[in-house]
């Protein structure tokens, strides 16, 4: 597993652990960035959050960004195509 993949896996695991409390802590709809397995910053907009991360020396492209209290789909079916070969 590459460094970027490992970092992504750590951030996804942190998100699964924290997602139930993000809304209470940061406010519903707030953009939250997770870096190195912890919440690094939050902001009202996606662009503001990316700017804050850059100011902190974090690479936004390798941060996990979510909106607090937004339910992202965990399982979906893709009908249009004929399915995996």
């Amino acid at each position, binding site marked *: 597993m590459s460094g970027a993949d490992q970092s*992504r896996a750590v*951030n*996804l695991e942190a*998100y699964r652990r924290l997602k139930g409390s993000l809304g209470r802590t940061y406010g519903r709809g707030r953009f939250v*960035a997770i870096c190195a397995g912890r919440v690094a910053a939050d902001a009202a907009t*996606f*662009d503001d959050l*990316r700017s804050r991360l850059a100011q902190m020396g974090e690479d*936004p*492209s*390798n*941060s*996990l*960004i*979510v909106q607090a209290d937004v339910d*992202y*789909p*965990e*399982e*979906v*079916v*893709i*009908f*249009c*195509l*004929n*399915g*995996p*070969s």
Partner: protein
Amino acid sequence: MKAPFEQRNTYKGNPERPWITIRLTAPDASIAELELLADTGNPCAIIISQQHMLRLKAADAPDVSTNFGVLQGGWLQLAMPELGLAQPVLSYASDAVAAAANADHTDFQGLAGLPLLRLVEYGGDAGSFWLRAVGPV
């Protein structure tokens, strides 16, 4: 009154498919233009290859499980002001989905689904599929 901007694309592929062109801003500020098969039944806004996602993502996002396996989440930055689209959109990476779209026409580099299409007006007729801005932009 000026008519809203419209992107109209003649169906193509075998079988014939509706499609759209999207433009995205990469983190290095370059602009990428991709043709995507339009699928109103697809619950993911955009699905592209892992290589494209790696180059274009503004940030990581949660993954999703599908009948094509796990799709990696990422935020892509839309750069289509003529349609009123200039926001980040939750998207996914999957080489399997991109390859399946590409099998219908070699120009297709992935899928565009309902969460993207519903940001504008969309529709089709006997010959083409179109997108229109919602109101003045």
